[in-house]
């Protein structure tokens, strides 16, 4: 039987919750015994997706953002969903440096960071219905096994 664990968060699309969301996901993943680097990677990716939902999904409205996390053995799956306005052209949105809000000093690096820090990412979006970002990352990849030797 596979070792699995799940959690779900629902919170308002207020910028003050960005910190809460990434710390909550980071805390949840600690049971996989991640390195500091892996925790930092996941925190950055979550922060990008949540910020996107707040700025682009809901713009100035306050509505709910849902984060669903699942652990399956050593893999962390994260889904971040909003019911906002959706993305017109997902492929274009994922281009590095592309932004629809340069006036807000968005760097256009959000999706690039998510791609760089996670193993896989997919984006489903429908205009007027919202956006769902799915990401996954294997934890403990390439780390040497700690073998306790007897003295």
């Amino acid at each position, binding site marked *: 039987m596979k070792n699995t664990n799940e959690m779900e968060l629902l919170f308002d699309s207020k*910028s*003050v919750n960005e*910190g809460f969301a990434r710390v909550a996901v980071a805390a949840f993943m600690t049971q996989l015994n991640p390195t500091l680097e892996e925790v930092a990677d996941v925190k950055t990716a979550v*922060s*990008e997706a949540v910020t996107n939902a707040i700025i682009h999904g809901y713009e100035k409205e306050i509505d709910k953002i849902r984060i669903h996390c699942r652990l399956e053995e050593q893999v962390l799956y994260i889904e971040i969903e909003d019911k906002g306005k959706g993305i017109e052209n997902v492929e274009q949105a994922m281009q590095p440096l592309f932004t629809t809000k340069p006036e807000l000093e968005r*760097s256009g*690096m*959000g999706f*690039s*960071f998510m791609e760089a820090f996670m193993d896989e990412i997919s984006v489903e979006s429908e205009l007027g219905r919202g956006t769902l970002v799915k990401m996954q990352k294997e934890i403990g990849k390439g780390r040497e096994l700690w073998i306790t030797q007897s003295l």
Partner: protein
Amino acid sequence: MDEEHPVFFFCIKKGEMKVKYQVQENCLTIFLPRELDHHNAERIRRKSDRLIEKNHIKCVIFDFEETNFMDSSGIGVIMGRYRMVYLLGGEVWAVHANERMKKILTMSGVTKIIQIYEEEEV
């Protein structure tokens, strides 16, 4: 002041980030908070732009001493300040950046327009 009973003032605002700004001649140093995300970026942007305009700033230094988290919103703040000062021939520096911050700065490509100051090993 009462010598025997000095009074200490502590200013701790819950949920407020700590950002200090220092202006020396035409140079502005921004002491960044622990986490530089979209939430904090907005306020830093507003405050620093006021200082840059008022003091004819040409050089902006981002001090990452306290900072251990940054996302693309932070990159936006740096790029925005660069845009403000480069027309005047100014420049932007990052100091006290830890390995993680350097990685984010390098990955984003922002190191093409700003300089990272490396301290000498003592």
